[in-house]
């Protein structure tokens, strides 16, 4: 019996391990490509002398925008994350703890569900014309506002889940003690939902970092983000494969760092953001 159990367990591990390899292999492949010379890459060589020209071109070449793209993505990612987090936390606290009538809660959450389902490109045209008319196209502010709006539904649900988990009695006790709303939020609720804030900010930042179509529409060369930089390597007449691979490898680094430090938080965030 135990013999059979053990071999079944071995089989499960074998299947899961195979899938883990399938998931990891493409990443390994692009990192390897990043270290190849253009010739090694185009000859499809498995064995090669590691070489840094791809990275040097991407980082130091005068015609490369990658450093600027990276900075732009950081600014937009951090800016929109802070904005979303403040707005979503306040709204979630308000909706779940400050006795709004049901229709307010439902219409706001309902609208955020509908908006979340619509492809961003359908609204990007309107965003472009509106931002152009107020001079916000091709600015950080414009893209930060757009990314904040795109991520607000998810942040609202996630913070809602975490704030609903804060015991009602704590909030009520603080109210009886005469604490005002900012005090309750700052001293009672925020310390408890800190893991939720961390999870929400990580995912909001990642989604802003990853976002492509809206950034494509709202930015030009000076404000273009990392995904646009990658897209450019592949869209020119001759694809710069080595540079594309090197830039891609560099752009995966933030995700890897977050993954190592916050694996549990990310899983919790993804699950509660989706399942609610």
């Amino acid at each position, binding site marked *: 019996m135990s013999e059979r159990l053990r071999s079944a367990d071995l089989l499960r591990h074998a299947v899961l391990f195979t899938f883990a390899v399938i998931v990891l292999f493409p990443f390994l492949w692009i990192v390897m490509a990043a270290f190849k010379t253009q010739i090694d890459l185009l000859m499809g060589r498995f064995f090669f002398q590691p070489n840094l020209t791809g990275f040097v071109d991407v980082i130091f070449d005068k015609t490369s925008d990658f450093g600027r793209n990276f900075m732009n993505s950081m600014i937009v990612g951090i800016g929109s994350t802070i904005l979303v987090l403040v707005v979503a936390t306040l709204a979630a606290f308000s909706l779940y703890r400050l006795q709004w009538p049901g229709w307010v809660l439902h219409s706001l959450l309902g609208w955020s569900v509908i908006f979340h*389902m619509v492809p961003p490109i359908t609204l990007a045209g309107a965003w472009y014309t509106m931002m152009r008319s107020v001079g916000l196209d091709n600015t950080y502010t414009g893209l930060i506002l757009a990314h904040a709006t795109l991520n607000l539904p998810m942040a609202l649900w996630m913070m809602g889940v975490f704030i609903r988990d804060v015991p009602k009695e704590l909030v009520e006790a603080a109210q009886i003690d005469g604490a005002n709303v900012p005090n309750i939020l700052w001293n009672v609720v925020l310390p408890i939902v800190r893991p939720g804030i961390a999870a929400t900010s990580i995912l909001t930042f990642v989604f802003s970092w990853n976002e*492509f179509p809206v950034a494509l529409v709202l930015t030009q060369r000076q404000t273009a983000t990392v995904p646009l930089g990658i897209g450019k390597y592949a869209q020119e007449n001759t694809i710069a*494969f080595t540079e594309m691979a090197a830039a891609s490898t560099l752009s995966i680094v933030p995700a890897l760092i977050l993954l190592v430090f916050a694996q*549990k938080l990310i899983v919790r965030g993804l699950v509660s953001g989706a399942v609610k």
Partner: protein
Amino acid sequence: MSADRFWRHATLWPAILLFVALTILPLANLLALSFNDVEWVNRTPVWNWVGVSNYQKLPDDNLLRAGLLNTVIFAVAAVAIQMLIGFILALLTTQITRGRSFYRTIFILPILVPGIIIGAIWKLMYSYDFGVLNQVLGFLGISALDWLGSPNLALLSVIIVDVWHWTPFCFLLLLAGLESLPDDIFEAARIDGATGWQILRDITLPLMMPAIIVTFVFRMILAFKVFDEIYLLTGGGPGTATEVISFTIYRRFFTEDQSGYGAAMSIAVIAIIAAMIIVATRATAGRGSKV
């Protein structure tokens, strides 16, 4: 009390303002735009009222037809495969005792990486001349395939990328669902001598229905928005083989500068999605799932 009233409003209004300014107003703008044709005079747009003629053009648009059809094929095929593989992997993971967090960590990676980079990675691997996939085929004595360049194969190649990209997401959500099922029911079933297959069919699947529906709906929504990977892999081609709806809108609105017509298309797509949401909510109402 009046201070409380103030704070109640002060905490909620930022969210309402953001939604109104960046979703409601643009939607109204889009609706107005869809009844006009836009001409550029001295770098300023001039709107010419054309009534519903932009909407009348929609049914005859071959690109739109291809975009809608491909989006549906892509979404249904990709999501079905992802759900199946994701569920099997999640089941296997609940049955092992060691290494759960190891697999979970690895499986989140594709979700966190920009779609455009997923496209770049696979473009490299799909390359006809030097891609690793054709090298493997050559090693097996099979002739090379033009993964992204052949009209018959391109959509399938894009679906394969999406399956690789998003199966881990299904895995994570379904695993969370499986881990939250009560243990005692399974123990009781095992004591009663139920086989593994019976447990799966009569206990696990019915209990998992809400989680399965939520995961399915969530993935379908994301699949309908697909843009980045296709932009990099095929650009909608060859011909219209991988044209998807987001792409059609982008093309009409921005590349071809037909913003009035593109707006009408956007409104039509939003209407279709709203209709699907209503049908889906009706169909799943009372199943205990809240999306």
